[in-house]
């Protein structure tokens, strides 16, 4: 890296410096930012080549590609930050096809004035998340917008991976009779974020569940290659994800409220705010739909994995031309679990 260092008169001031328009100009300032911040921490052979693209041999088999924009606010929250969230989120989207994630790209849109110290913390976090997951960020981009035109930092990540042969996982494959499983407690991430929003601060030890799920998925598809659907219930929560899958597959679903795992803190926070936990975002959980005969096996494999300890069978797929998702309430009655309308808002009285 010595050759790179000699280009710059002084080191990047990551202690008290901030992003300015020159960092987006494409010139020396940009090069220094990329070298001393991004490449330094994300450090891997493909990235270090310093090209505008990464070139690697095409893996054999079917490839998977996915992309995500990350605009979370606040940038830092209990259990993670926008950086680790970006890495986990994109790895998970790849994993939901049953695929093994290989490479990520990361494009940053930075707001003029954004502190370099914060940016460095985010990038270090990304690097840590990627390394823990065994995935590399091999290419990226940096742009800067004027102050007031961006919320600190926006990150867009794209990921590619490979699907093993014999795995056919898709949202349109659910069949009547299939079992519906969830890998753990719902609502952790959304409540962790809400607990840090300016005018909603409440004391809680809820941490975001942000995590890379590809290890769990690998164990699952190895034990039960006939899994029909996988999806991680992020924005819109479990309720929205189930509706998406029901719609795609043209089936209905019947779930049981009692079977859905939820942490008491999360349930309490939802009660306080008048929010339905079914619609609160998760960043380290997945929904799996598999043939009924395989449900028990799948459940035990999930529970054997650290990220699936609280896995549960929550219901089954049924024939239903309306593609309704219905739930038997803990109370014994029936209600629909509809699509989320707009954004969830707390009740007023």
């Amino acid at each position: 890296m010595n050759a790179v260092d000699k280009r710059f008169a002084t080191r990047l001031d990551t202690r008290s410096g901030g992003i300015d328009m020159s960092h987006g100009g494409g010139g020396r300032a940009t090069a220094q930012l990329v070298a001393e911040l991004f490449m330094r921490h994300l450090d891997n052979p493909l990235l270090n080549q310093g090209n505008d693209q990464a070139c690697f041999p095409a893996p054999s088999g079917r490839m998977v590609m996915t992309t995500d924009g990350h605009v979370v606010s606040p940038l830092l929250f209990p259990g993670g930050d926008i950086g680790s969230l970006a890495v986990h989120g994109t790895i998970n989207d790849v994993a939901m096809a049953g695929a093994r994630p290989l490479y990520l790209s990361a494009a940053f849109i930075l707001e003029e004035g954004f502190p370099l110290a914060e940016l460095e913390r985010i990038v270090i976090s990304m690097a840590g998340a990627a390394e823990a997951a065994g995935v590399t960020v091999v290419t990226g981009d940096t742009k800067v917008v004027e102050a007031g035109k961006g919320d600190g930092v926006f990150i867009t990540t794209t990921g590619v991976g490979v699907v093993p042969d014999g795995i056919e996982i898709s949202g349109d494959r659910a069949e009547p009779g299939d079992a519906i499983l969830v890998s753990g407690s719902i609502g952790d991430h959304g409540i962790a974020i809400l607990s840090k929003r300016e005018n909603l601060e409440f004391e809680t030890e809820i941490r975001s569940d942000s995590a890379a799920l590809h290890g769990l998925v690998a164990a699952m598809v190895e034990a039960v290659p006939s899994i029909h659907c996988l999806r991680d219930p992020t924005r819109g929560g479990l309720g929205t994800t189930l509706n998406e899958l029901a719609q795609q597959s043209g089936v209905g679903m019947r779930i049981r409220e009692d079977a859905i795992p939820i942490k008491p803190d999360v349930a309490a926070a939802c009660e306080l705010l008048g929010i339905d936990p079914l619609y609160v975002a998760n960043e380290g959980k997945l929904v799996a739909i598999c043939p009924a005969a395989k449900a028990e096996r799948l459940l035990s494999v999930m529970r054997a994995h650290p990220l699936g300890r609280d896995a549960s069978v929550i219901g089954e797929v049924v024939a239903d031309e309306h593609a309704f998702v219905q739930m038997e309430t803990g109370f014994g009655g029936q209600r629909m679990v509809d699509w989320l309308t707009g954004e969830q808002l707390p009740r007023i009285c």
Partner: protein
Amino acid sequence: MKYVDEFRRRDLARGLARAIAAEADPARGYNLMEFCGGHTHAIFRFGVQDLMPENLRFVHGPGCPVCVLPVARIEKAIELAERHGVILCTYGDMMRVPAGKRRSLLKAKAGGADVRMVYSTQDALAIARKAPERQVVFFAIGFETTTPPTALAIKQAAAEGLENFSVFCNHVLTPAAIRHILESPEVGEQGRLSIDGFLGPSHVSSVIGSRPYAFVAEAYRRPIVIAGFEPLDVMQSALMLIRQLNEGRHEVENQYRRVVTPEGNLKAQALVAEVLTLRRSFEWRGLGTVPESALAIRNSFAAFDAERRFDITPSDRGDVKGCLCPSILRGVKKPTDCKLFGTVCTPENPMGSCMVSSEGACAAYWTYGRFRDAGGTRRKREQAA
């Protein structure tokens, strides 16, 4: 979880359901109006109706402050934001309620008006403190439940000399609305709408107490049970109403004793009386003009009354053609009776307030219960096509 799990226990629900089934007289019907939108929501969300016998029907009342606010008042709020450039602070539900010409506070916000969602009056005060050069208006709505915070906010603003703060007051009163429904032609002479008894509001009653409902029992000879918000509260209250009706009694009973007392929260009442005063009459969506049913800001606090501070032109716009919110709010029609329900009018594209508010009957029915009538709705769609 304390105070929640205990009230949602399935075994207790089953016990109550058995008692209700045993005591409900098969020879008659029980039409119980739950006044409060919160109860409507609870009934649908927990599927309480499924645990009731066939001859017990919940009639959904107008206790949804978002739903009963007339279009004209929302238009005024939009105008405050758009034409007067104020920071308009509002509760979340109000943002999506459709006003005339498909406008709403949310659309005004998207068009550049400074509309901000707040969770409480304290948020609005904080905004006013932080931006002394801007006018900040709090869009106050709600039944008696939310009147103490509004009164307190005005007093605080007065004490601090927070001159850029004002309140657009739209508080409405529960007993007046109940009386108006009982006086309405459908219930009174025509007998089209049968209301045998009432589930009284929970948190309104925590403020005003259970005494103000005496007229329901005495003058109109209907039993009324003040009911808590949890599904078990609703069931126990239904049982208490069934018993009163079977025994020919019509009394005010309090099921929500853990929160509601006969005289209510006297301190809160005094606070409200100090700052707010009765309007001679107020227009309600669906109920029409109701005398002495709403509150305005007293002259002593006129400086913080947005209606006096800003010149807001009254508008004459009404509901969308075909929207049955007015009838649904009175309990005369059900959401599925409305031609717009589920066709043009959905939570994403609401035509009326009943579909917007999380406590509106149409929203509750659509979100939690439309699977019950799925066949019916489809048939209607086929007929309409």
